[in-house]
C-alpha cells in the first residue's frame, strides 16, 4: 500500500517493510539535487524526526520520519548518484527502508487521491 505525507514524502508498505522517498511534486520544488544525507541503519526514530536531508545547490530539504520506526536499509546509490532523486524520485531514487513500530499507523497517512488533492 502506498501512502503520502503533507511534506511530499511517499511510503510504500510491503509486509513489515516501508520504503520511503520524495514525490515528483517535491522534486519539482527542489530543483537539482546535489547531495543526499541518509540515516544510519538501525537507527530508531520517531515520527517527525529529521531522518534525511536532500541538498540542492541553494537549499536543504529536510525529510521528516513519516511514522515511528527503525531504519532497515538506506539507498547507497543516491549517495553516489544524487541525480537519481531528480530522475526517478518514486523509483530508483528511493531514500531508505524502515520497519514501522506500529504498521497500522500507516492508515493515518493520505492515500493517493487525498495527496493529489492536497498537492494542487
Amino acid at each position, binding site marked *: 500500500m502506498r501512502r503520502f505525507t503533507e511534506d511530499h514524502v511517499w511510503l510504500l508498505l510491503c509486509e513489515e517493510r516501508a520504503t520511503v522517498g520524495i514525490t515528483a511534486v517535491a522534486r519539482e520544488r527542489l*530543483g*537539482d539535487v*546535489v*547531495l543526499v*544525507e541518509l540515516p544510519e541503519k538501525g537507527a530508531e526514530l520517531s515520527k517527525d524526526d*529529521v531522518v534525511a*536531508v536532500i*541538498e*540542492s*545547490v*541553494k*537549499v*536543504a530539504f*529536510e525529510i521528516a520520519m513519516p511514522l515511528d520506526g527503525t531504519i532497515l536499509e538506506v539507498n547507497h546509490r543516491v549517495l553516489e548518484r544524487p541525480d537519481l532523486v*531528480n530522475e526517478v524520485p518514486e523509483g530508483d531514487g528511493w531514500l531508505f527502508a524502515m520497519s514501522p513500530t506500529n504498521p497500522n499507523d500507516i492508515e493515518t497517512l493520505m492515500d493517493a487521491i487525498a495527496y493529489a488533492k492536497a498537492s494542487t
Partner: protein
Amino acid sequence: MPLHDLHTELGAKTIAFGSFDVPLHYAGGALAEHTHTRVRASIFDLSHLGQFVVTGPERARALEELMPLDAIGLAPGRQRFSLLLTEDGGIQDDLIVANLGDRFFLTVNGARRVPVETLLSEGLAGDVEISALSRAYLALQGPFAESVLAELAPGISDLRFRDVREVAVAGVRCIVSRSGYTGEDGFEISAPADGAEAVARKLLEHPDTSMAGLDARESLRVEAGFPFLGKDIHFYASPVEAGLDWAISPLRRPGAPRAGGFVGAQAVFKQLSDGVGDRLVGLKPVGQTPVRGGSELYLDPQSEEIVGAVTSGIFSPTLGEPIAMGYVPAEIAAVGSRLFADVRGRRLPLDVVERPFVQHQFKR
C-alpha cells in the same frame, strides 16, 4: 517582464517580484544553467533591476553628495560600483554608476528600485534630474560571451572590464557594459522594452548560448565571492565590515581633495579609523554538508556563545563542495581560522578562506 513570452516558451519557473515574474530557472534546471555559464555563455533576464538616468550640468557633483564615489573623475564610457549608505554608515544599496557622456546611467537592485528613485529625486539638488527607465536588462555571461556578442554588435571586443557604450545589438540601440555578477567575462545590455525580445532571440540563435535564471545567478555570484543585498549586505552592515570599503573612492576619504560630503560619511570615517567588530569572510565547510545562510557560528563545538553567522551558503557546482560567506569577529577573520556552524543541531567545522572561490575572468 518584456521577455515574458520567451520565458513561457522555454519552461521558466518564475517568482513574483513586485509586478515582475522573474525566472528562477528554465526547463533544464539551475545546475545545468550554472555550468553552462562557466563553460559557454548564458543569458539572464534581469529586467526587474532599476535603471535610471541622471541629467543636468551639476549631475556629477550631485551624485557625489549622495555616494562615496568619484563621479567627477569618472571618464565618459566608464562605470563604477558604488554604494548608497544610511546616515549610520550601513548599506542601503549597491549599484553601478556609468558615465554616458551627457548623462549618468545607474543600475540598482530590483528590491531598491522605488526607495532609490525617491532618495535620488529628493537628494539631487538644483537642475539635476533623475528619471526612471522602463527598459529591459540582459546579462550575457561566460567565456563565449565576447564571441557571441561580437557577431551582433561590431566593435564590442574593444570593450574592457567596466567600459560602457551605446551600441547597436542586432540592430537595436542598447547600452552595453563589459561587467557582470557571475565572475565570468561578460556583458550587461540595457535594451528598449520593445526591442529586447528580438535581441534575446538573436543571441539565443547562437549555439553557445542558452537562458539562465536567478537560481544559477545566485550560485554563480557566491562562487565569485560577491555579496548580495538582503543576505550579505544590508542596512546594518557597514562597507568596512562587508569588505566593500574599496568602493569608497580615495578622493573622498579624510584628507583627500573632496573628502566626505556624502550620506553616511561621518559614520564610515569612524569605521575606517576605529576599526569594526565583524568582517564578511569566505567560509569553507570541512565536510560535504552545505552550511546555509542563517546558521549560527561558534568558536568551538561546546560553546553556547554565538560569535557570528553565515549569510550565504551553497553547494558549489563548480567545485563540487560546499562554500559559504558570513560575518565573524574581526580578531578571527584571518584565513585559516576555524569556527563551528550549527547545522540541524550538530556543530560542523568550517574555515575562513580567501574569496573568490572560483577565479574571476574579467577582461581588464
